[in-house]
């Protein structure tokens, strides 16, 4: 039997049905000239730097630049164009399709009340210059980007993984990163903490958080078949004394006349 083909470059979940004739519509890219402020921003950028595509999408300016100029462009944008806040900075993984990362800097100008997105591409092993000297908010954003995508940053004062442990292998937000661990992963912690010889004693790691084990009476109770904590499960039906005859399970005998019904919170 042949194994079903699996794209190793993208192991993410895929839609189980795709219409062959479906052509996804595009969000319109408006001309930069349609907005005065953005038009003058792009003009100023074009005079000083080599600029790729520039357009307005859903009210925000998108400008493509050369990744080598990122520090210079952002310095210019902050000092001359008054985009004073870097609200977000991260990457998109296009390694499988184009062998590169798309980096975006989401900027905000509180005086112009405008948002701009500066984008650039870098290859997998290329280094990107850190912009922490211009916007300090890039500090953790760059660390997270390195942690999640493996984008290499130069000139950062403390380049260390941010969210994942230091010894973590691979970069979780890449499309090649598996959604579930493989055969070896279920023994990883046991091997590391106790040693390989304990594999038989402890057993593989259970990674299904929703798993219910009816034979495990330490953690689960089987309604109407309750047994003491840790005892062997039994098939016999048990009626505990708090059980109302023919009533709802586990509710004590309720007398309506004893109950006090509150209309609202006191």
């Amino acid at each position, binding site marked *: 039997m042949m194994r079903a083909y699996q794209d190793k470059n993208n192991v993410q979940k895929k839609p189980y049905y795709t219409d062959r004739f479906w052509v996804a519509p595009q969000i319109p890219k408006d001309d930069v000239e349609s907005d005065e402020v953005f038009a003058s921003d792009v003009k100023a950028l074009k005079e000083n730097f080599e600029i790729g595509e520039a357009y307005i999408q859903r009210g*925000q300016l998108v400008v493509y630049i050369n990744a080598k100029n990122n520090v210079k462009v952002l310095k210019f944008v902050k000092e001359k164009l008054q985009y004073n806040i870097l609200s977000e900075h991260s990457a998109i993984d296009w390694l499988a399709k184009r062998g590169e990362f798309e980096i975006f800097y989401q900027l905000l100008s509180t005086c112009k009340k405008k948002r701009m997105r500066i984008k650039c591409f870098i290859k997998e092993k290329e280094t990107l210059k850190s912009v922490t000297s211009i916007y300090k908010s890039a500090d953790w954003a760059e660390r997270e980007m390195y942690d999640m995508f493996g984008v290499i940053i130069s000139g950062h004062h403390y380049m260390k993984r941010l969210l994942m442990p230091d010894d973590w292998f691979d970069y979780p937000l890449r499309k090649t990163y598996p959604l579930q661990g493989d055969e070896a992963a279920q023994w990883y912690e046991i091997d590391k903490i106790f040693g390989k010889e304990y594999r038989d004693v402890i057993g593989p790691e259970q990674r299904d958080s929703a798993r219910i084990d009816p034979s495990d009476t330490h953690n689960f109770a089987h309604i109407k078949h309750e047994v003491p904590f840790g005892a062997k499960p039994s098939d016999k039906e048990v009626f505990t004394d708090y059980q109302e005859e023919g009533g709802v399970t586990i509710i004590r005998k309720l007398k309506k006349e004893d109950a006090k019904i509150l209309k609202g919170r006191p």
Partner: protein
Amino acid sequence: MQKVNKLQPFFENLVFEREDNHMIVNFGPQHPSSHGQLRLILELDGEMVVKATPDIGYLHRGMEKMAENMIYNEFLPTTDRMDYIAATSNNYGFALAVEKLLDIEVPRRAKVIRMMLLELNRITSHLFWLACHALDIGAMTIFLYTFREREYAIDLIEDYCGARLTHSSIRIGGVPLDLPKDWIEKLQAFVDRLPADIADYEGLLDQNRIWKMRLEGVGVVTPEMAQDWGCSGPMLRGSGIAWDIRKEEPYELYDEVEFDVPVSTTCDSYGRYKLHMEEMRQSLRILKQLMPMYAQTTPEIMAHAPQYISAPKEQIMTQNYALMQHFVLVTQGMRPPVGEVYVATESPKGELGFYINSQGDPYPYRLKLRTPSFFHTAFLQELLPGHYLADVVAIIGNSNIVFGEIDR
């Protein structure tokens, strides 16, 4: 450096011999006032913090990865777990980003209900913030009072959507339900009651000697620092910059209601405390204006966009085509156009942004969650040095960080 061993603890931060007199203290992750799982490695000179290194990741669930493997509607309940103090604001941020992506218009009644929920969430979040902040400083009483009032606000939300903490009370394209009977009257009672309570808190704290000593001049954030570190919300307004996304880039009906943007020019923790109090009053003011607006709306609560959003229940149960479309939308998910959006909303903590890159698939190609607390925590490394160890707790409490949205 100690050799890493299987069963022996590994003291990575303990340095026993140093030339200067500095001591390194490991604050958290299990610390009652670290507001979640924040680990701070503090270098102390006597009691003065010389260097602070925040360490996060203890609550990391990989939400961005989860989003890439879920249809858009599936991801909505996950957003509850970001800022779990004010869950609706996250639901809303995500719903608005997807609506912007799809370019659909939400009915007016849904807008009013959303705004009511958002402002109620802002109030619960600020009450919770005050409670925990005061408790960290040592004022136990205020905790009990604010939690009582927060309970009333949560009751209202519970009446509406059935949940108290993880609401999921907003859908992409509108809201799932209309307001229940008598809800407006209950809201009115709450709105009438809260101003007196806020006055009580201020009576307890405003001139309180301990409160003032612990907060005044502590955690001074200059406007330059705030902008440089990407601060938003009360942290930005606390340093004199009047930037409220509700005002500057109005979404929903925020351009139709009247409210002020409070700003503090003292730049310290006490100023931010006063600012939070004023923001609650402004939220009440918005709620007051929303109640008559609700009465004037027509009953539609979900947008009409059959390609992306299921038809109302009655239509699904009576019309074949609506049912077919509903089936496809539930099993396969909607397929938004190709493109990208970044949508920022003013959550109680600051600028909550959702960046969505769609390639026309039912799953987003990339979803980046921009959360205010993440940047405020990064800021701690510059804010803490120069303060005393005791002020660290005050500053963390004052910066209103929630770990659900830092680690995501």
